């Protein structure tokens, strides 16, 4: 009996693996290193019903579900959180997203505002994430769960938007596309900047932009929102002070800035320039689904003539000074 019990307790046997792969020369233990604590692929995700910060009851409907666990105001967490809107926009009803934020409801609410969450956000006191997901002390984690409740992928290292996109494609479409990654915007000198819908943040009127008279625009793309916007607007304000009112650029903000965040930043900056918010992704800079949320800079400057691009450059180049580094760079290399 003891021998039989010990046989049952052995690591996963590889007969099933060799059958599925049609023959393997040599196989090794597929037992994962034992110190992994988060819920692993193959495990069953069995949450109890829980409520979001908006008092929605989350019943974990039978759908592909992306569960994101991140600190409320981590730069990386916010970047990834904001990308979820893009994912949901692309996959719509086929994908469910749930964010879990450790800490109090007030912190989760801040997170929800900053990522413009239209999906459930759960404030976790540490117990739920530990019991259900095995998260203990990690700063971030994410899980892809299939409609039957089986974890298909998990990681306790920070996800990149590109990883989430590839995983979503892999699971929902069974085909991964690979972005032709360039780090320059796809605007080009002498190309025509297409007419886009914008909202004037002073008059609240919607109109098309640019006009033939638009000469200069400063585009604030949404790679990193509140961690940089006030500082960059403060730097722009210094430029504005040195220029007359009739020589100021249009300031065009990404559609992804949440209204509350954008409003606070603009109010604090005390600007004179036209303030516009795009209604959709800014063409050439933000509009590729597989752009991986990478833009060459948070801020781009466009010189226009009759809506044709005569010049475009980064913020640093145009204003001639280095932008201050905000926060700590996420450049830890984990190989």
């Amino acid at each position: 009996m003891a021998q039989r019990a010990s046989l049952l307790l052995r690591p996963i046997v590889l007969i099933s693996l060799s059958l599925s792969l049609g023959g393997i020369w040599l196989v090794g233990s597929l037992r994962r290193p034992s110190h992994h604590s988060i819920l692993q692929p193959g495990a069953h995700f069995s949450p109890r019903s829980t409520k979001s910060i908006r008092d929605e009851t989350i019943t974990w409907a039978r759908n592909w579900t992306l569960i994101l666990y991140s600190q409320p105001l981590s730069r990386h967490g916010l970047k990834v959180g904001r990308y979820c809107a893009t994912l949901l926009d692309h996959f719509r009803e086929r994908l469910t997203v749930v964010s879990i934020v450790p800490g109090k409801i007030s912190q989760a609410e801040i997170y929800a505002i900053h990522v413009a969450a239209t999906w459930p956000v759960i404030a976790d006191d540490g117990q739920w994430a530990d019991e259900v997901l095995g998260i203990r002390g990690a700063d971030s984690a994410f899980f892809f769960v299939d409609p039957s409740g089986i974890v298909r992928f998990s990681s306790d290292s920070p996800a990149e938007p590109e990883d989430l996109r590839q995983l979503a494609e892999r699971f929902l479409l069974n085909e991964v596309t690979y972005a032709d990654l360039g780090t320059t915007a796809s605007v080009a000198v002498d190309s025509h900047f297409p007419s886009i819908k914008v909202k004037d943040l002073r008059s609240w009127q919607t109109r098309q932009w640019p006009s033939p008279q638009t000469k200069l625009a400063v585009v604030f793309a949404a790679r990193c929102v509140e961690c940089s916007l006030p500082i960059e607007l403060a730097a722009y304000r210094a430029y504005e002070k040195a220029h007359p009112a009739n020589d100021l650029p249009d300031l065009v903000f990404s559609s992804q800035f949440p209204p509350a965040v954008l409003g606070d930043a603009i109010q604090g900056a005390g600007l004179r320039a036209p303030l516009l918010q795009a209604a959709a992704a800014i063409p050439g800079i933000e509009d590729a689904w597989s752009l991986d949320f990478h833009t060459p800079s948070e801020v781009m400057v466009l010189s226009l003539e009759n809506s044709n691009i005569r010049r475009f450059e980064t913020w640093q180049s145009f204003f001639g000074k280095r932008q201050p580094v905000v926060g700590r760079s996420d450049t830890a290399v984990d190989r």
Partner: protein
Amino acid sequence: MTPLPTSLFRVANARFPEKVLEFGGRYFALESSNHRVLVLNRAKTPVGQIGRIGDGVGEFYYPSDIAIDRQGNLYVLEARKKRVQVFDQDAKVRSSFYVETQPYGIVVNSKQEILLGMPLGGALVSVYARDGHRLRSFGNLRTMSDFYGAPLRTLDKGYRVAINRVSLAVANDDSVFTAFVGSPFTDKFDPDGHRVWEREFPAIGARVVGAYTKTQKSPHLMTWPTDGGVSIPFVGTGIAVDNCGRLFWSVQWDGAWIGEYDLAGNFVHAFEPSDRAIFFRNITLSEDGGFLLAPGFINADAVHNTYLLRLPNPPCNEKTF
């Protein structure tokens, strides 16, 4: 310092190729961030790929290093997942296993034994059979004070693991070369794992010491969360051995250089790319031995290319030593 003519090895639709190997008329480009190995023909056109993002056998999540054995089997290391997978020339998985701690580099010797840099395992290098059985380990772990003496003794404990991260190369006779990532030192071990010699790349040591004592800024840093989160200057960027008994060892600081040594550890030449703005890592040799393949980037340009560095000596015919 002899300049090496450089040309670009540009791979369409590739994203930050981390390492490029050449075998049997094909190139294998490791794209860690795209979770795959791209297979290219002689014209450097992608003709297929191995793996895609995922957790299953045959899938990858941030594959970190690759190696090829003499039969053309491809070995893929995923440091984050602590997993090694072996693919045959038809891209079928032949082996898959997990290791105990986070590895850094991978090479394969003539017996198809898999060598991993694994300081968390208690030695510089651990050797595995293809079934995942650990066969042996060798190479005493070093300390900061071993390399730099008493002034850095206070860092011995904190950098205990990080300072022992190494890139690996294997010669035809299965002797092993370890190039330390955080210091300009390389060791040679015989096939039984005994240290034969150690060499220091000239003219960089003082700057590296300065980085560790915070009197100098290191141009490039590497951090592994598993190693206590300490950052080390990224100095030793790669090592490769050709069939002629030439050892190529690349280092960087405010520039990138390659030292050529013979297998006895005698310094032969020092090279730098003709475009001195290039920084590169994970050098490998072309099949004919005439080029180094070196993924890298130019200064702060985030676009990563692979550079072909033409070696000044003619390629040799394969022979054993």
